[in-house]
Structure formats: C-alpha cells, structure tokens
C-alpha cells in the first residue's frame, strides 16, 4: 500500500512519460515517487526550493506557456502562497494543480504551523478553485484524470498516513474510480440519518460500523470526493428523504463544508436536523499523533452516538 502522494505522483509520472506537457514542481518536499520523477523524467521535474510564492508564479507562467502543471508541497503552505494562487492562477486564469500533503492533523505532533485545520475554508473562498479529497488509494487515479481534464486550478488534499481500514472500506470500488461523492447505504432502505464526511477521518466512521454494528446499522455515509464546488443539487436529491445529517470534518468549523451545506439547506428552505464534529476553532498546541488528537477532539464512537442521539431527539427546525 502506498501513501496517497506516491500513488498520485506515480500515476502522474506514467501519464507524463506519454505527454511531455505534464510537468511537476516540488517545493522542498521529497517522496519516493519524487525520486522516480527525478531519475526518469528530469526534464519535466523542477525542484523549486523553499519558495512557495515563486513556485506558484512559475507554475502559472508554465501553465500559460502551455504546460499541465502540478506542484507538490505540504498542504499547510497554501496559506503562504495564497496570494499567488489567487492572483497568478485564479485571477490570471492559469490553471495548475496543487498537491497539498499532510492535511488536517496529518503532521501531528508537529504543531499548528504544520497542521492546517482551516485549509478547506481558505481555499474554497477562491473563485473557480476545485478541491479534491481521497480517503483511499482507489480514488487517486480518478482524481489525477479529473485534474488533467480540468481547466481550473485544483487543490488536491493528500492524506499523509496510510490507513488500512480506509482502504478496506473502499474494497468494492473500482480502481481509479471517481465520483463527486460516494454513498454507502445503510441496511435500511429509507435512510433516517446520514453522516457526511471526507478524507481519511472517514475511516473512523467505517470502523464504527464494524465495531458498533448495532448502533450504526441504520446510518448511511456520504463521502465527498470533490469538496468544492459541491454539486448541491445532486446531494440535495440524495438526501431528499433524510431527516438527520451529521457532518464530520477534520477541519475547524469556520468556513467548513458543513457551513456551506447548512447554508444551502437554509436558502432552499430545506428542513433537516444538523449536527457537526469539527476540530477546535483555534490553533492546536497539544502533543499527540493524529489519532490521539482526533480522540481528544471527539472523533470517537461515544461522541458520534451522542450527536446522533441528539439529532433523533431534537425537533426539526
């Protein structure tokens, strides 16, 4: 099993061998797959050093010059070069694909400088941006294809760690599949409660469906693969008869996808009960690895069940 970054970069490498317009920039980030690019396609690979702002501008120029540009760095650095992404890529209409590695708490316990708990919020403010997320390697090939087809700037959130349970949950998906979202039905036909989530935090929900089979048997999961823009119409249709929505994100609440979905429901006069689980709305100065911190912040069975209980109890608004 490979890390998402290696899966992505290797698939891209094979595409790039047949298409010389595909180029990769790396801003001070290595990976086994980067070594392959270096040795196998040195003319299509550009290390740019620790210079994310220049890297984005160069990428925009390469894009305008006819290249299909991918740039790889730690997810948190989108904050550092946000201006260049907005200005040179979005306003300038020079589409590139940004591969942000180690999103959410992926780099814990490296501290808040390395743990973006607001990257989705920040990036989705950009007009014309497309944001992708994968929870298993099965989706990576499909996202590569989407990015190559796209004429917009893409931000691909790559999870740092490999989690077997996320892979197992996607066992039935075809390799390189891509859907805007996946819907994993509960045993019941007419769903009462749906959990919406994305990225590898979703593995915790799949795990619970095994460990707490009885408690979670009536709960379906809607996994977002394309985070932004969301196809609200399709989601609305899918959730037509659903009463309760629990949204779980490895992000802070402000500017989250949950906010966007809740707003959409409000604007359309759609009445649903809505609960969320989010990272705290502050920078996290706390030791612990990703899983320890997720436990700490309530990404566990008890909290999820509590929220679901609350949903079932509260009167609809």
């Amino acid at each position, binding site marked *: 099993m490979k890390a998402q970054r290696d899966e992505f970069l290797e698939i891209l490498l094979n595409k790039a061998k047949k298409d010389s317009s595909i180029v990769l920039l790396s801003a001070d980030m290595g990976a086994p797959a980067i070594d392959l690019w270096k040795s196998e396609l040195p003319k299509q690979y*550009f290390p740019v050093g620790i*210079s994310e702002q*220049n890297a*984005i501008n160069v990428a925009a*120029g390469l894009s305008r*010059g006819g290249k299909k540009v991918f740039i790889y760095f730690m997810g948190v650095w989108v904050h550092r070069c946000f201006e*260049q992404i907005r200005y040179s890529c979005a306003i300038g209409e020079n589409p590139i694909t940004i591969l942000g590695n180690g999103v959410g708490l992926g780099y814990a316990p490296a501290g808040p400088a390395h743990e973006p708990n607001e990257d989705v919020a920040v990036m989705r403010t950009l007009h014309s941006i497309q944001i992708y997320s994968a929870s298993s390697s099965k989706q990576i090939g499909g996202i590569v294809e989407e990015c190559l087809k796209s004429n917009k700037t893409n931000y691909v959130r790559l999870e740092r760690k490999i989690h077997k349970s996320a892979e197992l949950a996607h066992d039935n998906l075809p390799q390189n599949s891509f859907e805007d979202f996946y819907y994993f039905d509960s045993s019941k036909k007419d769903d009462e409660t749906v959990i919406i989530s994305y990225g590898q935090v979703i593995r915790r929900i799949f795990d619970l469906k095994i460990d707490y089979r009885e408690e979670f048997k009536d709960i379906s999961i809607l996994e977002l693969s394309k985070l932004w823009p969301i196809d609200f119409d399709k989601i609305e249709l899918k959730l037509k008869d659903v009463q309760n929505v629990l949204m779980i994100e490895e992000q802070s609440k402000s500017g989250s996808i949950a906010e966007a979905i809740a707003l959409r429901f409000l604007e359309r006069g759609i009445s649903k009960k809505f609960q969320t689980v989010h990272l705290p709305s502050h920078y996290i100065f706390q030791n612990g690895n990703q899983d320890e911190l997720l436990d700490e912040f309530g990404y566990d069975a008890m909290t999820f069940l509590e929220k679901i209980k609350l949903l079932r109890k509260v009167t609809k608004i």
Partner: protein
Amino acid sequence: MSLRSYIYKESLSQNSIFVLDIKSSNSVIPTWYYRVVRRFKRTSNLEKLKTYSREVRREIFKFKTSSGYGHLASCLSCVDLLVSIYLDESSTFDFDHDRVIFSKGHGSPSVYPILAGLGIFPEEELEKYCKKEGILRLHADYSIPGCFYVGGSLGNGIGFAAGLALARPWQKFYVILGDAELYEGSVWESLMFIAQHNLTNVLLVVDRNGFGILGHTEEMIKIEPLNLKFEAFGFAVTRLDGHDLFELRTFFSDNQKKLRVLIADTVKGKGVSYMENRYEFHSIIPKEPIQIAQGMADLE
C-alpha cells in the same frame, strides 16, 4: 470561417500566445485592421524616438488627469524604457514574438499609448481609460490587446515570466520591475530560479525611480547597492540613465545570451516639473486646472 476563428488562426500563425482581438458591443474587429493605420513606426532616429516619448507622456498625462485614476508619476518614469523596447528599430524586441510583462502593474498603463500608436487598438480607447465603455484598465491585463499579464500585485510578474520562459524558450520575456517592488521577497526567490535554469530569455528591467509610495527607498528600507545584489544572484548588471534613449539602445539592442538586468535610473513623474521626484504624487493625480495646464505645457 467566422471572423473570430480567422483572428484566432491569424494570431496562431504569428506564434502569439494569446488571441489578440478587440471587443466592441456587437462585433470583433481584427487587430490587423488597426495595425494598418498605426501612428508610431519603429525607427532608429533618436530625435524621432524622443518625439514619441513626449507624445506618449502627453497621452498618459491626458488620460490619467481626465479620469483621475491610477499612478501617473510611476507611469511617467518608465516611458523611455518602453519607447526604447517597442519603437527603437535597434531593439531586439520582436512585437509578434516577444512579451513585455509588467510586474510593476501600476506602471502598465504607460504602454497603452504605444500600443494604440502601433495600431493594436483604436486610439479612442485612450480617452475611455477606466471608463465603463472602455477596454483599458488601471492595471493592464490579458483582456487588453498587446498585454499579457494581470497587473496589480507586486512581486509576482517576474516568477510568471520565469515560468513562461521555461515553457517557451524560443520567446523573450521583458519584465518591468519597480524598484520598491524589490522589497517583495518573491522577487528574490524568482531571481534564484531564473539563474538556476539559466533563463537568458528573461530580460529584467528595473525602473529605478527611487521612490515608493511613502518616500525615497533609501530612507525607508535601503535597497542599494542593487548592482552588487543582482550580481551576487548571477546577473550581468547594466546601470544607466533610463531616460537616455541612446544609452538604452546599447542594452536593448544587445542580443547576448546571458542573464541580464538593466537598472534604469529614472525620475518619478518625469517631464512634469512639479511632480518630478515627489513621492506624494505616487498615487495623487493633479486635479486643478492650473496644474493640468502646467503639466501639459511641461510635456510639450
């Protein structure tokens, strides 16, 4: 074939990156139509070039003062650089092939009278600068024929040009940098990148007018000695009077394949007596009739 397709094909045949077209309310007028009626022609006659510079400054002064928008003084300082690039016959700049990237976006309107004079768009557009019905904006962008970069955020055009130069080694990219723009760290990141990849098809031109919005650069945060800084980054530095068209010719006619930067010592507000070297005029445009009359008289 539709007119739009024809123009597109035409622009491709000229190896242009972008489709050059003019949008009017109902129709698309091909650029070659205007190029037939152009006012400026490339020349090696220095006196003629000086006349062009004066004309360009007058036009800039007119459309800036009539609209009240933009950075007049910053535009006036780089006029001779642009005249030398675009209009001096000795310049190696190939209009159909090479690109000027205004990293210093607030100075980019100074190119409008030149493009109009070359017939890239109708001269009447100058009168419509920043007006709803016009195509010319405060910061040039690629929707304007002959412009290839969205201006307005400093420190970025140089990196963009580096990417273009890497993708298109057969073209030259002239980057106009402001001197106060050099405060942006991204400029120096790009310099390292350009040097690393030996992008000799990027020509850097620093409009060294000495002033940022709040005063003289050396009184705010010193940027000198610029020559040594650029040399340390691997560039051959030429420093000269940015208003001397003869001196400028020596730089722009040189086709050597090496990393080059021109530091052009210029005067902010050049040509308008009361604006010259006055940082207060960075974003203030004269409004009083007496100031406007004086400015026009100075630029005669």
